[in-house]
């Protein structure tokens, strides 16, 4: 039986006097993908930010490996990779410098994988170009290269939270990302993601539709 990675209990979130979700319960086991669905404004991003610990205005409990996430925050942060809506890339730095910084502040990322990660996202020969000279899609790819830097020995009991990871990525790129996600979960990782595109991952994807949980 795979470890119970994340247990969400009676989660409630309200924004601008509108209840996004209440009594939300779900479990996420290691090696599983959870696809969070819902209309625009249904609270997908809010949920993902709550799960990352980046949004505190909620009620309910989140357990990571059967401990309250508030109490194991450091361990949780080091098991987590979050890709949000922001570019999360410094324009005045090169892709290599950006990823180097990430590897140093997030110990779960391996700096020795920067080269291979950049070529995995199709940015070979762009390592030392300032990000301000890259296209929007290429900047997103620099950010997504972090998925390819996640150290394999840390896959077990780790979690990727991906908010619309496929935005501005071409068909080839999406396919590569899906292959990476599949490789990751097959080796013990878990993924929570939102996307409006149909997922082509050859694995069981659990669904969570937020339209059913709010008002």
């Amino acid at each position, binding site marked *: 039986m795979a470890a119970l990675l994340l247990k969400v209990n009676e989660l409630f979130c309200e924004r601008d006097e509108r209840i996004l979700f209440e009594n939300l319960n779900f479990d996420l086991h290691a090696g599983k993908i959870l696809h969070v669905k819902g209309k625009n404004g249904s609270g997908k991003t809010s949920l993902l930010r709550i799960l990352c*610990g980046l949004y505190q205005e909620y009620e309910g409990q989140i357990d990571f490996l059967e401990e309250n996430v508030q109490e*194991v925050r450091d361990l949780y942060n080091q098991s987590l990779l979050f890709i*949000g809506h922001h570019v999360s890339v410094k324009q005045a730095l090169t892709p290599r410098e950006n990823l180097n910084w990430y590897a140093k*502040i*997030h*110990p779960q990322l391996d700096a020795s994988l920067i080269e291979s990660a950049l070529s995995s996202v199709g940015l070979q020969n762009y390592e030392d170009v300032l990000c301000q000279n890259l296209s929007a899609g290429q900047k997103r790819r620099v950010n997504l290269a972090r998925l390819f830097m996640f150290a394999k020995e840390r896959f077990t009991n780790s979690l990727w939270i991906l908010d619309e990871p496929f935005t501005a990525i071409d068909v080839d790129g999406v396919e590569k990302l899906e292959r990476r996600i599949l490789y990751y979960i097959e080796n013990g990782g878990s993924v929570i993601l939102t996307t409006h595109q149909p997922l082509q991952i050859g694995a069981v994807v659990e669904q969570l539709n937020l339209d059913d949980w709010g008002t």
Partner: protein
Amino acid sequence: MLLNQGIYSGNRDGFEVVHMIRAFWAELNRDLLLAFRRRGDLLNPLLFFVMVVVLFPLGVSPAADFLAQLAPGVLWVCALLAALLSLDNLFKSDYEDGTLEQLVLSSESNYMTAMAKAIAHWLTTGLLLALMAPLLALMLFLPTEAIPVLVISLLLGTPTLSLIGAIAAALTVGLKKGGVLISLLVIPLYIPVLIFGASAVQNATLGLPVAAHFAILGAMLIMSLVLAPFAIAASLRMSVSS
């Protein structure tokens, strides 16, 4: 039980310390590199400092003895305002491009990274202002024996300004018009630094001892160096999560 498996077993505390120090250098390194890439922005506080000090004699009086009397206060006030002006951008661009939230996710406390950002701010403003000050002091006819005291007082005082200012900058980073609020928040806290900094220079011009002033500036620096990062980190966490 599960938490003790795999790579997390063993000396987690030691790992935490190493991680925090690595994150500290990474953040300092990145901020300095960014400042270097945008050298033009580095000049802003310096230009402000120079312009106000240059315009002052033109607007008031060019008489040497009059200027010498005013010089300690004028130099300190201008340096303080120059440091204050640069605070607005301390966290703004990181907040907007999302690297700030990634930084907040890097560790539970963010104490070291918050300190790194404040130190980077000082290295790119306060330090440069302190190095620039002797030139402007000569222009205002500050007695030469007071110039080392001016530089030392700025070197001791401006880091405190950066650390305290970073708290206000972190609190207001999520707001659209945080700039005014920053000034309102930090000016009262800057006053003690200004008083002891300026009066150290004043004492030096009169040939009075300045050790006590330096001691108090140093004490304020150490206190803010130890305590301000907690407040900066907590404020950043709050600003990111709204």
